[in-house]
């Protein structure tokens, strides 16, 4: 089931078209990556999902029915441009923002207590926001976003401003939320976190959706039939054993262990490569190289720019 669907969304600001016929379907209980270069229209799409903006054309569905204004209470949003009132105290402000999401005071206090204890930040309660570092403020914002137990979450660049320890903490929390049944939209330029966290992605470039699908499936789609082989033995013997169906792309040696990248030029069976080299060298590892999301991102964006 798709928890959220946006069909044929068009949004223009005057003469500038921010989204041109974009369609996304977000399956329930997945982490969905929203990718694209700066200015592609990601933030506009997110704001339309949040009902901050209304689309010029297109339909929006939440839980298989038309999106309605009250649905914002079931959503959590961590915007890329985020901040807090500087002069207000952390606790007071968290409570205020939680109540804006429709929580009762008691409920909000109980939940805040739980999260402040979990993140070990109880001592910040009476501090003013201006006394916090950027990373500390980000933690508070993260808590505010998830406090009302939304089943649909949108994180726009959630890891920016965090040190590696806190970034890991956030990553674990996001996975935790998914384990508890939430659906998460992750908009980020950090491709390694996309590979690590996302089940599905949509890539938007120049106001249009240019790539959509499951991460593993996309990686398979864009693989170049390249294998990485580690072996011990004579590199000349290794090279001799390859026939015209296989092309050696690069090879390097570290402490007597060779690492070679070989392209399966004729799309032959993978086992054939293995049977060619096995008699000549001692193979320690053999695996197919999948393209990184980073490479796919660059490749797709560049080719779609050429097509325009």
């Amino acid at each position: 089931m798709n928890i959220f669907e946006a069909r044929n969304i068009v949004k223009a600001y005057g003469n500038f078209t921010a989204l041109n016929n974009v369609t996304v379907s977000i399956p329930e209980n997945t982490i969905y990556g929203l990718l694209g270069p700066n200015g592609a229209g990601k933030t506009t799409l997110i704001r339309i999902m949040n009902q901050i903006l209304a689309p010029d054309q297109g339909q929006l569905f939440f839980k298989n029915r038309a999106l309605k204004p009250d649905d914002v209470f079931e959503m959590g949003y961590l915007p890329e441009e985020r901040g807090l009132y500087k002069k207000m105290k952390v606790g007071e402000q968290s409570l205020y923002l939680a109540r804006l999401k429709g929580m009762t005071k008691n409920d909000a206090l109980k939940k805040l207590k739980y999260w402040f204890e979990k993140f070990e930040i109880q001592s910040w309660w009476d501090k003013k926001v201006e006394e916090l570092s950027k990373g500390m403020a980000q933690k508070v914002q993260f808590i505010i976003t998830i406090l009302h137990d939304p089943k649909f979450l949108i994180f726009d660049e959630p890891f920016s401003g965090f040190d590696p320890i806190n970034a890991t903490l956030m990553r674990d929390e996001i996975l935790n939320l998914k384990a508890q049944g939430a659906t998460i939209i992750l908009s980020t330029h950090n491709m390694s976190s996309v590979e690590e966290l996302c089940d599905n992605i949509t890539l938007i470039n120049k106001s249009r959706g240019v790539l959509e699908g499951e991460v593993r499936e996309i990686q398979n789609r864009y693989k170049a039939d390249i294998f990485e082989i580690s072996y011990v033995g004579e590199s000349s013997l290794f090279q001799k054993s390859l026939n015209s169906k296989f092309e050696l792309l690069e090879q390097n040696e570290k402490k007597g262990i060779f690492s070679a990248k070989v392209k399966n030029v004729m799309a032959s069976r993978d086992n054939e490569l293995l049977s060619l080299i096995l008699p000549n060298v001692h193979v320690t590892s053999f695996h197919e190289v999948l393209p990184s999301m980073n490479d796919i991102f660059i490749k797709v964006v560049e080719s779609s720019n050429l097509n325009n």
Partner: protein
Amino acid sequence: MSIIGPILFAAMFVIPIWVATRESDVVKNIAVIDSSKFLNKIPDSKYIKFYYQPGINITDYKKDWKKYKQYDAVLFIPNIIINVPSSVQLISNEQLNIGLITHIASALEKDLTEQKLQSYGIKDLDQIIESSKTKVNIQTINITETGEKESDVGVNMGLGYMLGLLIYMFIFMFGAQVMRGVIEEKTNRIVEIIISSVKPFQLMMGKVLGIALVVLTQISFWIIMTAILVTFAKLVFMPDVDISQIQANSQSVMSPAGSVSNTQTATPSMNISETQKAFQKIDAIPFVKIIGWFIFFFIGGYLLYGSFFAAIGSVVDTETDTQQFMLPITIPLILGLFVMFYTLNNHDSSIAFWFSMIPLTSPIVMMARIPFGAPNSEIILSAIILIVTFIGAIWVAGKIYRTGILIYGKKIGYKEIYKWIKYKH
């Protein structure tokens, strides 16, 4: 601020008058070289002392001027003064105050006039002049449905001035507060978090109305404080008059205190003192009507300008960028203030009428007209125009606001804003 507010406002009205009428408290010593030979000595005042230098003329002084350095100024009266009154000179190396000059001029004028009159040789001239002097004091009476009341042009002017100025100040102060609040939310980057829960229009109106309620609480507090002070002052200055009686007549907002009626020990043949007269004049003011309209015009004017201020705040990134947008707001406000000053002297002129109808100036100008008894039909017409305008202004401001708050780091011009107003949301 809530307690010292009324004191500050009172000071704002009293201090300029006090400063203007105050005599210098430093004694000025003036040397007088009188070559006229026929004028009387100018009388000393508390802070001005005159020292006549007999037998010295202007040439002696010029030769020997260092001798007179102990004096603050030297007054030279030439003998041609009877024909050329402008020939009097006051020589000093410092800037002299206007009070001193006025004192000397009026003394000389009086003396010269008397001497000239005497030169006509009319018998008993003094008595003739004295008996022909007449001072006219006009009592102004306002006739209303509830009967006639003594009113006072001075009190009405003072009230009109105060009310108009207060509206002007409140619109500026609290409008700017709205604008700063919007800019703060924008620069803090909290605005996007909030508008994912509430609609931008709700956020804007929440800010505008929230500040309005704070101000109204403040004003009601001041009114109650003032009412208590006035009631107390009445008890002190005119304990013989039944206060509840006056309150019933004047429809005053003051709540009659239970203990007050005990002080009623009126003597039948009581002379009404000046203080009591003053209080009667104050009682003649229809406070309920004035306060009611004041609150209405304040809210109306504030909503109109407050929504403009909110829109400006949403367009800019910092307070320093607001300048170019502030001008179109500041000009009608200041114009309103100047027309208000004019209205105090010409409250039934056509300028006063039109500017009390134009919604950008009506809250200030109409408040200056109401104490003079502007017709209810005109007040209501002005109120309706104001309501229609502020609804329109809020609608336009809302459109600017919802686009503006999400735009950062871009210099926005009027053309761009016009486009936003046309966007469909």
